[in-house]
């Protein structure tokens, strides 16, 4: 079964992935994805009826710990990594009109 990725799908995936692709990149992404999905479809040769999806190899439940602050005040160093910042906050383009 050959997978076909439509223009709408690649557009939609681009939105989910927050990636802006040029027209030629979109075509390449379509071809790549079709090829990979054909390959991934080989998994359908396996009958997995009744098999639970395994997200973690060990039988562990959620791990809780007390929320205790152990780090110091790294605000200046953290802000120094930001592409744009004010004295005490990250700066982003206007989000509300």
């Amino acid at each position, binding site marked *: 079964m050959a997978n076909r990725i439509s223009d709408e*799908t690649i557009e*939609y*995936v*681009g939105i*989910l*992935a*927050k*990636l*802006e*692709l040029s027209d030629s990149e979109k075509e390449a*992404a379509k071809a*790549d*994805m079709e*090829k*990979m*999905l054909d*390959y*991934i*479809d*080989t*998994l*359908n*040769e*396996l009958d*997995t009826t009744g*098999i*639970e*999806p*395994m*997200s*973690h*190899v*060990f039988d*562990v439940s*959620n*791990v809780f*710990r007390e929320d205790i602050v152990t*780090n110091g005040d*790294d605000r200046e*160093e*953290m802000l*120094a*990594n*930001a*592409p*744009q910042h004010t004295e005490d906050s*990250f700066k*982003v*383009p*206007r*989000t509300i009109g």
Partner: protein
Amino acid sequence: MGILDLTALELGQKIQKKEISVREAAEAALERAQAAEPVINSYVTLDPEGALSQADEIQRKIDAGELTGPLAGVPVAVKDNMCIRGQLTTCSSKILSNFKPVYTAQAVINMKNAGAVILGKTNMDEFAMGSTTETSYYGPTKNPHNTAHVPGGSSGGSCAAVAAQECFGALGSDTGGSIRQPSSFCGVVGMKPTYGTVSRYGLVAYGSSLDQIGPITKDVSDCAAFLEVLASHDPKDSTSIRREDCRFMEALADDVKGMKIGIPRDYMGEGLDGEVKKAVMDAAKVLEEKGAVVEEFDLGLVKYAIPAYYTIASAEASSNLERFDGVKYGYRTAEYEDLHNMYKKTRSEGFGAEVKRRIMLGSFVLSSGYYDAYYLKALRVKALIKKAFDSAFEKYDMILGPAAPTTAPELGSSLSDPLKMYLGDIYTISVNLAGLPGMSVPVGKDSKGLPIGMQLIGNVFQEKKLLRAAYTYECATEKQFERPAHLSGEDGQGTDGAGQSETAKEAHQA
């Protein structure tokens, strides 16, 4: 024998005995690195100043009797996806080209507490996505054994740095083979421990359910020593496991009598290079002669590991890499209209082709309407693969096979066909899906002089068995770390970097 020819443990011993100072060791490695780097490109960041000041500090602690461990004073390298406070951590990506973390990865802290000197950060495939170290934004790393070939990946910089004697051991990370495959290509020992053994705190995430940090070293004893330091329970990583026994150096015994070793027929068939096959089978014979019981068996499901892996790893990557959006750290595009446009342009300009390919695939398999058919299906197949290993380990103490189907490919020959490149991960990838420990041990070279690695796979928590078998193999073959025959940046006369500086100094004095 020069300083650079010593293993990490040999060097550590000489440092404790005051035969070599920590500064001398660091200088030797730095000088070798500076000479080799223009050709090999193992490092993204080499930090001579920081390394020498660490060396002096560690020397003081050794002299004061505060640091007595076997790795105290040993210069090492760290893959550039592990955070070190105040030091560039790029993941070999443009998007993190100026990122300086405000904290240090637990694995690195463990190495520092053991007295290791951190020389710098090594090159890798961008965000650990690739098998050749060619997807790095900072240019490819070359294989020190033949610079026309790749070192493998994604921990190619770490493996090349160890092979080229630019450090005495290194940290790598392994999501689908990223320690074992480049170790095999570079002729060094590399181990991916059982999932949860080494804290992932401070490791920039790729596929969180698969990622694991591990050692890359010159020989098996060094591997055990590094692992002993790296393994620790860490409350900061909720998948970290509290292990009863982390005394891995105790496993270094020359004895495999009665050990049951299975060789999967499905690992030795179609697609496997003849010379690799012969070297691996010869190595199995060595273990058999030492008293192991070696037989072939059918593991099953081998061909399904790659499609299951790329579904799961891409899905996790698409989620993990959402944080790179040009707000809190890293690269931001120069011109943009609004917030969403800024996100999109930043990410499109900041990520390379392979990373974008996996983010797109991951976003697709997680999207509504496809989640069950792709993502959940892959997780079900993962359960089946784990089951296949479980039944193998009912019969065998370990599984033996190749680490990769071939030796290192030529530079520039892999990226044009991603699917073909992915197929090279066939022997390593299922180990990550099942959370198992696996290691690569050098077992010879092909006719082109490129190293071949044997992979040993154990059941969960059975690193000691792997180390014992690998150590026994080393003893039986009297195998020692083999430096590349022709190392760039020197005359190939066995003089090390320190020797060159001596000569220069003498010339100056004359």
